[in-house]
């Protein structure tokens, strides 16, 4: 017997479990029954049967063109999405691409999103103490020389002079010695470091080399991850009522961040589906596609698009174990049929190549059959009707059409 968390009799459980309903709906039925203490087993049976009938009714019929229905169901509300790239200061003042551009970016499976970002969750005391949370921030956010102190050039002596700010160094947990060492490694010069003052210059006195050195100095990442230009820290209430610090980053380096101490590697996410695929696998990428498309629609008030359509899109995009875009370079471009591919985009190229290679079209799909004017193999088009002239009892007759 299945364990049920509801206060209903064993007989009721028996009749409900006997139906062909998914777990969630069974639980809904139990909840309803629980709320009616005077319900009998017969009532329970009737209720369960009624729900089952409705459930079976609403299931997709065999040969239903689910892809076409999904395309329409996402496309129609899609006309109401913001067309321009409006950036908005949403969570923690970080700009994120919204609306149609974001949706296109997702289904096109762009290698990097327009505005990459990560949501970094922290664990244990890092999540509850602001100072510990800041430690993680300094390990993530790229620290450039200008954040650490002032840089000036002494043209007379051909020297670059850096005067570091002691407070900032302490806060970001980096010593002047380390700074000097990183400069030596990166620029290949020898430095003179005294307290918070660092000096260096080109080997041969040359004004151009001096300026070149300053340019390169500005690009060095002294601490943190190169790709992450900004981190915003926010105190957020969790589902269970507790509060913890969450970091939002501009720029993303998902794999690197997961390894940093204090980062909760089980909840941290990013908005780049390719990074998710690389670090967490194809199943996580599928989940991320659904989540991202769903959120993009929901943010624009279009959350009444059924999630099943988005799940179908994600399923197709991840079907081959890697993320494929919807469109000419992805799913549509890899179709078997020449005519179907030619009907989509760049018609002449497809037909020419097909002619050169002597391709054969088996006319199995929808598009190619529409082109040649044959019935498509979907819905009633793929059902052969056999009229029962010989009475064969209950199974025959006019009403029963059978898929052949």
């Amino acid at each position, binding site marked *: 017997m299945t364990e049920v968390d509801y206060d209903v009799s064993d007989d009721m459980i028996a009749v409900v479990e006997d139906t062909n309903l998914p777990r969630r709906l069974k639980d809904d039925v139990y909840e309803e029954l629980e709320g009616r203490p005077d319900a009998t087993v017969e009532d329970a049976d009737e209720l369960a049967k009624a729900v089952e009938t409705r459930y079976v009714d609403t299931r997709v019929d065999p040969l239903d063109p689910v892809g076409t229905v999904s395309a329409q169901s996402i496309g129609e509300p899609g006309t109401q999405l913001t067309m321009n790239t409006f950036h908005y200061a949403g969570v923690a003042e970080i700009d994120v691409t919204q609306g149609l551009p974001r949706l296109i970016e997702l289904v096109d499976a762009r290698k990097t999103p327009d505005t990459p970002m990560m949501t970094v969750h922290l664990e244990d005391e890092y999540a509850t103490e602001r100072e510990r949370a800041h430690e993680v921030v300094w390990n993530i956010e790229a620290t450039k020389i200008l954040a650490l102190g002032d840089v000036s050039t002494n043209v007379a002596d051909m020297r670059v002079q850096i005067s570091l700010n002691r407070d900032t160094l302490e806060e970001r947990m980096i010593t002047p010695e380390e700074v000097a060492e990183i400069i030596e490694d990166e620029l290949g010069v020898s430095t003179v470091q005294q307290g918070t003052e660092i000096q260096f210059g080109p080997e041969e006195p040359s004004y151009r080399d001096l300026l070149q050195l300053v340019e390169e100095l500005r690009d060095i990442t002294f601490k943190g991850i190169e790709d992450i230009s900004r981190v915003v820290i926010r105190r957020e209430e969790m589902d269970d009522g507790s509060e913890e610090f969450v970091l939002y980053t501009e720029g993303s380096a998902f794999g690197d961040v997961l*390894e940093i101490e204090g980062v909760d*590697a089980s909840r941290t996410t990013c908005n780049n589906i390719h990074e998710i695929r690389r670090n*967490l*696998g194809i199943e*996580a990428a599928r989940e991320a596609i659904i989540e991202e498309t769903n959120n993009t629609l929901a943010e624009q008030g279009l959350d009444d698009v059924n999630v*099943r359509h988005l799940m179908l899109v994600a399923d197709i995009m991840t079907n081959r*174990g890697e993320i494929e875009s919807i469109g000419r370079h992805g799913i549509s471009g890899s179709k078997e049929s020449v005519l179907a591919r030619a009907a989509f985009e760049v018609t002449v190229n497809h037909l020419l190549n097909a002619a050169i290679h002597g391709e054969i079209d088996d006319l199995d799909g929808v598009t190619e059959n529409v082109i040649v004017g044959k019935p498509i193999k979907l819905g009633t088009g793929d059902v052969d009707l056999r009229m029962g002239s010989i009475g064969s009892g209950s199974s025959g007759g006019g009403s029963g059409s059978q898929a052949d």
Partner: protein
Amino acid sequence: MVDVSQHELVPEHTVLEEDELEEVLSEYDIDRTDLPKIKRNDPALPDEAEVGNVVKIVRDSRTTDQAVVYRLVVE
């Protein structure tokens, strides 16, 4: 190294035994190459999975309690 199976986006992956696989394939009346694929280098794949194996994935589904899907391991 981070244990990716702990991540909330990653569902449970287990390698399917041959006899269980036969059952699945006959239930759906398909070949194993008709299944969705998963790359051999996928980080969520169990270590013992090899090319040609089929992994069983149990997802927390949005539309039902749990959804079971299968993926064929490919190169």
